[in-house]
C-alpha cells in the first residue's frame, strides 16, 4: 500500500495490531490470557526475589536432593527407554509375530491412561504384596514402591511411548537395500547395525529420549503415588513445589518452579533442534 495516500480516504486509523482477522485476534487474546499472563506473573514474582536470594533458594540442600531425583533419575529412565524403545520399534516395524497389534496399542496406553490411575496401578503392583513387588522382594529383597526405584519405574512408564513413536516412522522409511548392500560388501550384522542403521536412527532416538526425559522430569501424578515423598530419599521437584506452597513458602515455590520452567524451555529448544537435524537426515540420506 502506498504510504502517502490522502488521509480522508483512509478509514479511521486503527493501531496496526488491531487490524487483524478474527482468527488472529482470538488466537492472541487466548494465548495472552491463558499462557502469557500466568508465565509473566511467575517471571515477575521470581524476579522480585532478587538474584542472591534466588540462588540461595534454588540451591538449598533439600532442593538439590530433589533435582538429583527429578533430573538425574529421569535421565536414567529416559536412557533405558532409549534402548528398549528402539527394540520395541524394531519389533513393531520389522518383525511379524502374534500380538503385534496389541503391543502397538499398548504403547499408547501411558498417553491415554490418566496419571492418577497409572500411579495407583504402579504403586500397588510393585508394592511388597503386589504381583511384581512380592517376587522382587522375596527373591532379591528389592523394595520398589515407596522408594526411588518405584519413582524410576513410573518415569519409565510415562516416557516409553515417546521413543517408540519417534523411531517408528524413521525405521519404516529406512531402505532395506542399504542394509543388504552393507552385507554384500562383507559387513557383519553387527557392523551393519552400528554403522548403517543406528546412525540414521540416532536423531529420532535422541529426539524421543529428550521428549521422554522432559515429560518424566515434569511428571507428577503417577510419581507422587509410588513415591514415599520423603525429602532426601525419593522426593521429586514438583512435589517439593507443592509442599512449599502448602507451607505458604511462596518464594521457594516460585524459585524452584522457575528452575523447572527454565529447564522446560531449554529442553523445548533441544527437542526442536533434534527434530530439525532429523529432517536434515531424511533429506540427505547417506
Amino acid at each position: 500500500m502506498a504510504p502517502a495516500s490522502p488521509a480522508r480516504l483512509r478509514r479511521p486509523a486503527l493501531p496496526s495490531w488491531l487490524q487483524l482477522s478474527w482468527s488472529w485476534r482470538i488466537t492472541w487474546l487466548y494465548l495472552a490470557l491463558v499462557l502469557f499472563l500466568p508465565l509473566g506473573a511467575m517471571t515477575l514474582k521470581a524476579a522480585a526475589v532478587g538474584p542472591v536470594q534466588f540462588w540461595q533458594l534454588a540451591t538449598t540442600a533439600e532442593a538439590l536432593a530433589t533435582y538429583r531425583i527429578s533430573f538425574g533419575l529421569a535421565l536414567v529412565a529416559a536412557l533405558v527407554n532409549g534402548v528398549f524403545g528402539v527394540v520395541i520399534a524394531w519389533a513393531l516395524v520389522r518383525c511379524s509375530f502374534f500380538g503385534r497389534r496389541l503391543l502397538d496399542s499398548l504403547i499408547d496406553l501411558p498417553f491415554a491412561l490418566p496419571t492418577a490411575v497409572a500411579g495407583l496401578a504402579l504403586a500397588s503392583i510393585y508394592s511388597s504384596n503386589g504381583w511384581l513387588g512380592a517376587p522382587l522382594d522375596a527373591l532379591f529383597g528389592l523394595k520398589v514402591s515407596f522408594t526411588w526405584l518405584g519413582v524410576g519405574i513410573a518415569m519409565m512408564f510415562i516416557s516409553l511411548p515417546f521413543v517408540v513413536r519417534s523411531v517408528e516412522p524413521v525405521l519404516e522409511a529406512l531402505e532395506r537395500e542399504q542394509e543388504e548392500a552393507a552385507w554384500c560388501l562383507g559387513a557383519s550384522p553387527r557392523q551393519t547395525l552400528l554403522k548403517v542403521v543406528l546412525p540414521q536412527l540416532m536423531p529420532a532416538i535422541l529426539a524421543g529420549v529428550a521428549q521422554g526425559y522432559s515429560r518424566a522430569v515434569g511428571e507428577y501424578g503417577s510419581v507422587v503415588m509410588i513415591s514415599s515423598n520423603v525429602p532426601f530419599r525419593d522426593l521429586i521437584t514438583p512435589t517439593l513445589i507443592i509442599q512449599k506452597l502448602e507451607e505458604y513458602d511462596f518464594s521457594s515455590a516460585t524459585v524452584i518452579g522457575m528452575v523447572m520452567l527454565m529447564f522446560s524451555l531449554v529442553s523445548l529448544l533441544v527437542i526442536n533442534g533434534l527434530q530439525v537435524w532429523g529432517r536434515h537426515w531424511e533429506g540427505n540420506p547417506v
Partner: protein
Amino acid sequence: MRSLLRFLRSGKIRPSASVLIPLIAGLYVAVIILLPALEVVSGAFAKGLQPFLDNFESEELHSAVRMTLMMTAIAVPANTIFGLSAATAIARRQFPGKAFLLSVIDLPFSISPVVVGLMLVLLYSPTNGLLGGIVTSLGWKIIFSWPGMTLATIIVTFPFMAREVIPLLEEEGWDQEEAARTLGASSWQVFWKVTLPSVRWAVLYGLILTTARALGEFGAVAVVSGNIAGQTQTLPLFVEDAYKQYDTELAYGAALVLGGVGLVSLLLKLLVEQVIGGNKETEPMN
C-alpha cells in the same frame, strides 16, 4: 544374554533375532504397561462385583464426577475455538516467527503440570497473586475453586487441537477456499462450508485427545484445587485421596472408571486413525 552374543557372532541375524526382539519388546511392555493396567481391573473387582458397585453410592465420588464433567465441558469447547482460530490463522501462511509461535503453542506440553498450577496461584491467589488485589476487590474466588481448576485444565490441554489441525490445513492448501471466495462466499461461510469440513477428522481426533486429557488431568488441578472433598475434588484427585486414606476399594473403583475413559479414548483414536487412513487412500479418486 549368552544366546544374544552367540547370534551376533554367528552372523545369522534373522532366525534368532526375529524371536528375540519381539520377546524382549513384549516382556518390557508387559512389566511396565500391561500388568499395571490389568492390576487396576483386578483390584477393582477383588471382592466381587457387589462391593465394586457399592462404591458408586459414595456422595463424594458423585461430586467428583460432576466437577470433572463440568470442567471438561468448559475446557473442551473453549480449546476447540482457540485451536480452530489458531489453525486458520497460522497454517498455510508464511511469516517471520512462525516456527517460534508454533513452539509457544506447544509450550504447555513441556511445562510440568505442577508449574502450570503454580503459575495460576502466583497470578490469582488473593494473598500472594499478582492480580490478588483485583480478584479480592471483585469478590471472585479463583484459586481453591472451580474457575482456577478449569483454567488449569484449559492450559494443559489447549495445544492438542491446534497441533492436530495445523498440519492437515498446511497439506490441503488454499485452492478450495479461493474458489469459494471467487464465487462470493463470505469468510465465515468459507470457514463453515469449506475449511471445517476438510479438517473434520483432525478436529475429531483433537477433540478426543483434549477430552481424555481434560478428564484425567491431575498435577495442575491438584495445585489449584486445595483438594476439598465434596467441593473441589475431581475424579483423579479423588483416586489419590481415597488411596492415601487406605480406602483401596473406592480408589480402584474410581480408577477403573477413569481408566475406562482412557481406554475408550484410545479405541476411538485408533478408529479415527483407520478412517483417516482409509480417506487418504480413496481421496485421489473423488
